[in-house]
């Protein structure tokens, strides 16, 4: 029987997240810009993969498609062998909430919430108010533990604009880890930070990787990408080397 759910072949069955022939283009005025032109790519559980490429090469677009924040024009994305296109809206939301942890270049924290609440938001988003009441204490202690591990235990009641860039990115990492996701997708996580602070963030990713966390990181910087276990180069909308 043909394995419909594993189109990359039996040899790649161990990939937790994979994509096949991903194409994506954008209309820019009168011209259509093809960003991804048939990308095939997979990430094994526990891997730390960096996707490197020049600005505009489609790294972030690929990451968004992998995380179901965007849909490809053509091609398929598989999570644990299941095609994301077959997921219902509710299941896609569940996938984003429980299976994926996003870390963005610009942190994307909510200014109205405290550091602790921003971290807890990931947990709150995945359940009902009643469900939250049942697990709020354990969630709070997990959030505090994560913030403590990331050196933010003194900052729990601060609001994002009261923090430095590095601190904000660490809050974003804590939020991404809150639901103990299968994969962390990090889009230029050090892009907005100085090299020392960025180095600290990369150390965190390395530490997470060594603890078994799957991480996919996008970066245009060769030195940063080289910190990953595996580096994939994206050029002209295609994987040029892996």
């Amino acid at each position: 029987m043909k394995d419909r759910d594993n189109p990359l072949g039996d040899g790649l069955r161990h990939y937790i997240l994979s994509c096949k022939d991903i194409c994506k283009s954008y209309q820019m005025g009168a011209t259509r810009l093809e960003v991804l032109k048939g990308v095939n790519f997979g990430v094994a559980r526990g891997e730390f993969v960096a996707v490197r490429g020049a600005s505009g090469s489609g790294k972030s677009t690929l990451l968004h498609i992998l995380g179901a924040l965007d849909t490809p024009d053509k091609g398929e994305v598989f999570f644990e062998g299941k095609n994301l296109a077959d997921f219902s809206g509710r299941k896609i939301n569940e996938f984003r909430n429980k299976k994926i942890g996003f870390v963005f270049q610009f942190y994307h924290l909510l200014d109205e919430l405290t550091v602790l609440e921003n971290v807890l938001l990931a947990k709150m988003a995945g359940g009902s108010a009643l469900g939250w009441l049942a697990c709020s204490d354990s969630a709070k202690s997990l959030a505090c533990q994560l913030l403590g591990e990331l050196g933010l235990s003194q900052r729990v009641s601060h609001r994002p604009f009261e923090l430095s860039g590095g601190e904000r990115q660490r809050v974003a990492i804590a939020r991404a880890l809150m639901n103990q996701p299968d994969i962390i997708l990090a889009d230029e996580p050090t892009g907005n930070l100085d090299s020392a602070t960025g180095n600290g963030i990369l150390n965190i990713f390395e530490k997470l990787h060594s603890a078994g966390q799957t991480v996919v990181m996008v970066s245009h910087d060769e030195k940063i990408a080289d910190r990953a276990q595996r580096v994939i180069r994206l050029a002209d909308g295609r994987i040029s080397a892996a």
Partner: protein
Amino acid sequence: MYDIILPVRFFLRRRITILAVLAVALCVFTVVVVMTVMNGLVADFTDKNHAFFSDCIVSTDSLVGFGLYDEFISRLEKCDFVVSASPVINTFGLVESESSGKNAALDLMGIDIARHIKTTDFADTLYYRRDLPSLAFEPLYDINLGGCIVGVDLLVERQKSGQYRQLSYLPMWSYLITCFPLTPKGALAKTGTQLSANSATFYYSDNSNSGLAKIDSTVVYIPFDSLQSLCGMDIGAKRTSAIFVKFKDGFNINVCTDKVSLLWQDFISQKSDFMLAYLFGTVRVEDWKTYRRETIAPMEKEQTMMILLFALVGLITVFIIFVIFYMIISRKSRDIGILKSLGVSKSGIVRVFLRLAFLVGICGAVVGILSALVFLANINRLEGWLFDKFGFQMWNREIYAINEIPNEIKPILLAVVAACAVAACLLGALLPTLGAAGRKCVDVLKVNQL
């Protein structure tokens, strides 16, 4: 839980939501204040009409009147739903002040004071004889003189504050009242070839303040029998222009009016051989509101127009909230992207912003209603202060028959306005919220990165 915490945080930590609350509060304040005052004015006007004209009126527009009224009143008073009935003559006459020599053509109303005070609230309109209204036609200075009651605006100066400058004593003023009697056929009665005119002198015995400006500025009341004789309504058979009927409390006015109408039809069919039976054809039986429709209907129409205008205010509120929420959501698009990246559903996003709209609506309604309550509680004091300081008066009391600006608040009005305010907020927020929830989070996040 995010859909409870986030609306509260967005509400408390965004200045723009305060502007939204103020916009709603302003609309609520305006609607509550104007509706309360206008409803009060209309209710006051209709209540005064009801009090003056009793519940049901059997009347004719003809100046000749109709006969056998005494017999019909006897029949009416035997009905279990009737308290009393009173004959009334409405006609015109020349009234000349015997001291100043000034004269004017005025409305004359002939009333049987004993019956009239039982049938209407006329007693409450009197000044000197309020405690002894049955003696209202007996001047205090000489009870043997024939008295007349004069509409308050004809004699008494009204101050700008709305109070009448009543004299502490009853002045002995006399009036020569002249009527031109009509025959039962409606022709002017003649003495030989000359038109006859009946005149009699009446002494000022009281004034009547019904609160109905047109009546208080044109009507002079004299005893029923005297006016009947003056205008020839005792020629042939005694006649009247109208019978005012008061129903017992708890009886439906419309139902009882229909019963009176049937009674009247029955009465005139039995009296078809009466020599002035042809006059019965012009008689109508109406409830007080129908009888006064010419004056009440325009006010009620104004009230309806006002409600329509305030529906427009409601639409403006919806539009303001729409614009404000469009701005809020434009500024919050990044947050929507973040929430979606965390797995929040479209309906979750809608819930967050609709709850924010609900908070804006509730707070706007509460602020608007509270400020309206405070304003209405002090509206007369405020108007008095404006009048004392700047001479400004919302309604000139020399013209409008109100003493105070009505400010009685109806809880149902507050509830309806508050519900409408919340509904307007939800409606105004719905479109931008649905639009925002439908956007791809990657588009929103990208836009905010640029």
